[in-house]
C-alpha cells in the first residue's frame, strides 16, 4: 500500500494532520474535563477543515471554520457553562458500562477497514483534481439541488423554533 510517493508534501501534511486529529478525537472521548473536551474538539474540527483543503474543497473548509469552530463551538461552551459543569476535572463523566464501547468501536472499524481495503485497495486520487470554486458550488445548490436546499431551510426554521420552545422559561 505504500507507494514511492509517500514523501510528497501533501502526504506528509496529511499524515501530520491525521495524527493530530486522531489524538484530538481520542482526547475528546477520554478526557475528564468537559471544557478540555470542547477544546480538543476544536482541534479535530480544525484538522478536518485542513483535510478539506487537501481535498480541494476550499469553500467547505471555510464554512467548516465559520460554522463549526465559530458557531457550534460557542454553543457547546455555552451549553457547558449554563449547565454549571465544574471547570476542573470530573470523575463521573463515563457510564458504568463504558467498556462496552471498545469492542463495538473496534468491530466497526475492522468491518469498515476490510470493506475499504477490498473496495478501493490502492486506488489513487486524480493527480490534478478540479478545484471547486464558490461559483460552481452555488450553481449546484441553486440549480439541481435547490429542492434539498429548501427542505434544509425548513429544517433550520423548525430547529430554531424548536430550540426556542424548548429552552425558554415559562
Amino acid at each position, binding site marked *: 500500500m505504500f507507494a514511492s510517493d509517500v514523501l510528497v508534501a501533501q502526504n506528509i501534511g496529511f499524515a501530520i494532520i491525521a495524527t493530530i486529529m486522531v489524538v484530538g478525537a481520542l482526547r475528546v472521548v477520554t478526557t475528564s474535563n468537559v471544557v478540555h473536551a470542547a477544546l480538543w474538539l476544536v482541534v479535530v474540527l480544525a484538522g478536518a477543515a485542513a483535510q478539506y483543503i487537501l481535498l480541494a474543497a476550499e469553500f467547505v473548509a471555510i464554512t467548516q471554520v465559520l460554522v463549526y469552530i465559530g458557531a*457550534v463551538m460557542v454553543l457547546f461552551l455555552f451549553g457547558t457553562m449554563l449547565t454549571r459543569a465544574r471547570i476542573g476535572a470530573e470523575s463521573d463523566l463515563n457510564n458504568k458500562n463504558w467498556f462496552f464501547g471498545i469492542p463495538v*468501536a473496534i468491530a466497526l472499524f475492522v468491518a469498515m477497514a476490510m470493506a475499504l481495503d477490498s473496495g478501493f485497495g490502492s*486506488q489513487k486520487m486524480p493527480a490534478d483534481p478540479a478545484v471547486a470554486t464558490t461559483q460552481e458550488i452555488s450553481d449546484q445548490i441553486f440549480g439541481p439541488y435547490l429542492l434539498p436546499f429548501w427542505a434544509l431551510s425548513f429544517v433550520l426554521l423548525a430547529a430554531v423554533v424548536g430550540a426556542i420552545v424548548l429552552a425558554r422559561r415559562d
Partner: protein
Amino acid sequence: MFVNQFLILAAVLFCIGVYGVIARKNAVLVLMSIELILNSVNINLLAFSMRNGSFDGHTFALYIIAIAAAEVGVGLAMVLLMYRNRRSIDLDELSEMKG
C-alpha cells in the same frame, strides 16, 4: 494520495465517535461525539467527490454542516431543559423510558 487514506481516517474518527456515544454519560459530551461522527461523514463525501471529479459531494457536505448546526441547537436546548428539570445532565438518570 490514496483514496483510502482519507476513508480510513474517516473510519477511525467515526469509530472514536461511536465509542464516545456509548461510553459517555454527560449529555454535552455525547453531542460532541456525534459531531465527530458527522465530520467523518463529511470527509468521506469530499474524498469521493474528489475521486469522482464531481462537486456533488461538496453540496452535500455543506448541507450536513447546516444540519449539524441545527442538531446542536436543538440538542443543547434539550440539555438545558433537562438541566433545569433535574439539575443534572447525566443520561444515566434519564431512564424513565425503561421498557
